[in-house]
């Protein structure tokens, strides 16, 4: 019955073979080599930095992961989220509550004394717990996203973390069953969860040198970043990634080739939430200032962390994953340089930078650089005459166009 098409034969096997070849890293494009070089440099950073600087830089790794989390759903599928801290908070609180309010009391009750290995296992269980809680949050946002378009979805995503914030207040003392000791109200949880490595007693491995602590935290965080990169890169570079971007372009087209857009949309939200939640959960055990409080996980103004990840991802380039890495570096660099000159104005210059980038560089640094690089190579090979290229559509532009259509639909030119 099957129609004869080029699909004949053992496609699965051929696919695996092709992937394997790709993984051997032959024939890498220049930008990929640059990317690997960059990641390698990140890995070497502890050799250069003082412990204190290193701690500050470790936070940038988390900012990268948070921005990647946002990019997966907003950059790729075009479902703009304005409250991604919702997922971060779920992950961070998730692991803290799992460890401090469930696992540790349970093990204490059983009379188990935890050694380094035991504590590590408990921490890992907490991270898994936090990631799952965040993923559940992804379902919670993803399902309404099926019904809501453009601006309405944006409003819902914006409201979600604020609702969560309120519920931390409401269940500050106790959340039956789920969090017996409560969620800590506006201040957040006071008892920090155990660290993988730390100077204090509350850690799987206790060290007494500051620099050992800083370096260990850096590498654990770096490992988390690599995991996040591998997962998100894998998904977005597989066929699922092209389905994501196709959803951003035209859901009907996706449907018409036998793909279920709803499934992929929810998946994007869940993946994004899980990545963000995972990052936040690891942060609570290995990051700098690893405290599960509202200021860490929502930002001092309750939604600023959500804004920051958007700014980071937009500066770097939406729909690229690596853009988030570059964006976070820019963001941190700008923040510290500007902050050094006018510390009292601290947040304002960074916001200003975000505004400028949004206005003049909407496509983002990475896509612009890639295009220019390609052009440069082609120019050197003599294939094109000039380095200036005519505009091609970008992820950002596509999202914009789609959004405009939705808005037009709502305020209704033709409908009336």
């Amino acid at each position, binding site marked *: 019955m099957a129609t004869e098409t080029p699909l004949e034969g053992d496609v699965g096997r051929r696919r695996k073979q092709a992937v394997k070849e790709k993984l051997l890293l032959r024939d890498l494009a220049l930008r990929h080599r640059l990317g690997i070089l960059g990641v390698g440099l990140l890995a070497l950073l502890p050799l250069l930095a003082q412990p204190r600087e290193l701690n500050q830089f470790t936070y940038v790794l988390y900012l990268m992961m948070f921005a990647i989390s946002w990019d997966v759903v907003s950059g790729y599928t075009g479902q703009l989220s304005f409250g991604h801290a919702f997922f971060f908070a779920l992950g961070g609180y998730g692991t803290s509550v799992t460890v401090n309010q469930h696992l540790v009391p349970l093990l204490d009750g059983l009379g188990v004394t935890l050694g380094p290995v035991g504590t590590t296992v408990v921490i890992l269980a907490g991270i898994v717990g936090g990631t799952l809680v965040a993923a559940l949050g992804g379902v919670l946002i993803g399902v309404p996203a099926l019904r809501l378009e453009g601006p309405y979805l*944006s409003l819902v995503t914006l409201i979600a973390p604020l609702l969560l914030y309120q519920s931390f207040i409401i269940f500050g003392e106790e959340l039956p069953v789920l969090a017996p000791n409560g969620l800590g109200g506006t201040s957040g949880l006071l008892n920090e969860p155990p660290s993988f490595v730390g100077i204090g007693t509350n850690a799987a491995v206790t060290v007494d040198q500051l620099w050992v602590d800083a370096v260990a935290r850096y590498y654990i965080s770096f490992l988390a970043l690599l995991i996040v990169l591998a997962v998100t890169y894998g998904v977005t570079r597989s066929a699922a990634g092209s389905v994501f971007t196709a959803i951003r372009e035209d859901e009907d087209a996706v449907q018409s080739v036998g793909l279920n857009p709803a499934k992929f949309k929810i998946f994007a939200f869940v993946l994004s939430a899980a990545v963000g939640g995972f990052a936040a959960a690891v942060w609570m055990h290995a990051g700098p200032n690893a405290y599960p409080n509202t200021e860490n996980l929502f930002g001092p103004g309750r939604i600023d962390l959500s804004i920051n990840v958007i700014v980071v991802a937009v500066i770097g380039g939406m729909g690229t994953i690596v853009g988030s890495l570059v964006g976070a570096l820019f963001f941190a660099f700008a923040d510290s340089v500007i902050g050094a000159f006018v510390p009292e104005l601290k947040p304002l210059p960074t916001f200003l930078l975000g*505004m400028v980038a949004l206005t003049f560089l909407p496509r983002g640094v990475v896509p612009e650089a890639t295009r220019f690089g390609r052009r440069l190579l082609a120019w050197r090979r003599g294939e094109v005459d000039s380095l200036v290229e005519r505009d091609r559509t970008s992820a950002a532009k596509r999202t*914009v166009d789609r959004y405009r259509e939705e808005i037009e639909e709502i305020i209704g030119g033709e409908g009336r």
Partner: protein
Amino acid sequence: MVLGEIATATVTAIFLSALYAIIAIGFTLIFGVGGILNFAHGAFITVGMFAGFLATSDAFLIALPIWAGLLAGTAAGALIGAVTYLGIIRYVRDRPVTILILTFVIGFFIIYAIRIGARDVFGVNDPLAIPVPQVMGTAFLNDVYIFVTSWLLIGLLFYFVNYTRTGRAIIAVSQSDKGAALVGIDAEKINLITWTVAGAFAGYAGVLLAGAFGNGSWLMSIQPPAPLILSFAIVILGGLGSIKGSIAGAYIIGFAETFTVNFVPGGEQLAGVSSLVLLVVFLLVKPEGLFGRGAGE
């Protein structure tokens, strides 16, 4: 006793909702006319509050009476609305996503600027508690004042959009940019007017809101009762872009909020939450709103 409480709550809800309505109307006007969800609207409220504080505070200048504070707040709101449009929004008008994120960032930029200004320049002890006086001596009279003037503003706005040439142009633009251009309306000018009016309303409301709650705060737009978030809820309930819908939405939200807080056990903690829950449910059931246009067709 219970009846008395219900009566009190009802009166409160009626008064407060009027204030919410003028905040939400500004938000919905900007959306209706420009298709822009203005996340910076909350910052406009905060700017109004802060101008009101500056005018009435005795720490500098001269301590002006509160009516001058109201004027200052309204003017500052109008100004910040106009400046935001002219300075930034105008240039990115055709890029909705950029605008969306931009207004988000602009809003936070403004409220952080207020916080820093309050602390470092004006020596306010606590940017979370910026003193702004009530308009009237007693809480009840103050509520009445809020109610009366809010409705007066709403009435003026209705007169404006229905009986003046510019007002009708606003409606025309909100229905179709292209159509309006065809009949010779300067959409640019209309947008500017809309942003200015919306800013003025927000500024006026900011002063009153701070007075009614004892003080303003740099975070007032997103702290309970979170007028920014409430206005989202209101305009979605009423339908994005509909002025009448906003008024209806404001009353629904106002009543829901007041009654939850007063009568649901433990409801005091639910301030700002009940309306959001209501909103989320409503979004899922009827996203186009009570008076929504188009989306459901």
